[in-house]
């Protein structure tokens, strides 16, 4: 929820971590799209698939807060995707239906190894956020024990 927090406490931390989870999941979706289309020589607009990069942006969790720490705490969200303009490989294959007049086929600029590395990074980041949420819950439970 976009309500304002009063202190940099467990609830603000949880919101931030949740936004991180969503952003990483979005990133994994983009990577999956790149991997799936690594061989797509003719996309919807007729040109070869261009690999996509996620674009992240951050927004403050409690805008206008006077708390020195809380005003610097930001949530992340996936603002959109950006097409990678670098050209892909040209492969000589005159028999291919998408070959140009010189007999070359333009393949997408997707490097499967790079995408796999990105996928592992995103997956690790997701796990780290989950473990951060577990820590937050455990801290809150410890705080409840004070009152016992």
């Amino acid at each position, binding site marked *: 929820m976009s309500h304002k*927090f*009063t*202190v940099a*406490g*467990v*609830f*603000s931390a949880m919101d931030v971590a949740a936004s991180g989870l969503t952003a990483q999941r979005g990133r994994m979706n983009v990577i999956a799209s790149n991997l799936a289309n690594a061989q797509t020589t003719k996309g919807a607009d007729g040109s070869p698939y261009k690999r996509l990069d996620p674009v992240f942006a951050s927004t403050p969790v409690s805008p206008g807060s006077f708390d020195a720490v809380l005003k610097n705490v930001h949530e992340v969200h996936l603002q959109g995707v950006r097409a990678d303009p670098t050209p892909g490989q040209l492969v000589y294959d005159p028999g291919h239906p998408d070959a140009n007049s010189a007999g070359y086929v333009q393949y997408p600029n997707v490097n499967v190894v790079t995408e796999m590395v990105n996928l592992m990074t995103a997956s690790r980041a997701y796990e780290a956020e989950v473990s951060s949420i577990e820590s937050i819950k455990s801290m*809150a439970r410890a*705080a*409840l024990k*004070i*009152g016992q």
Partner: protein
Amino acid sequence: MPVSPITELARTRETEPLVRTGSADAFAPPSGGAGASEPSAISFGDVLGRLVETANRADAVAGQKMDALASGAGDDLHGTMIAVKEADISVKLVASIRTKLLDAFNEIWKTSV
């Protein structure tokens, strides 16, 4: 900036000693024929009164913080828990001192002829 409830209890620790510094003995008779001068010790009533005041203040702070948490406006978990526990201890401290005073009074009352 949240009010630190720890200052409430800390203030009781800073209470003046039962015997004011500068006077040799609380129970010494006033010297120099000062007439109707009061003994320089602070009475138990003062100490108890100050503790009750501290307990009231701690209780008010705890009540405020509990309301904030219950109504969803507050996000301060550990601050609320600490304030509530401090209020609880303050009240129990007052009651415990009152009990001891009563017991002491009863003992003295029984021994007097």
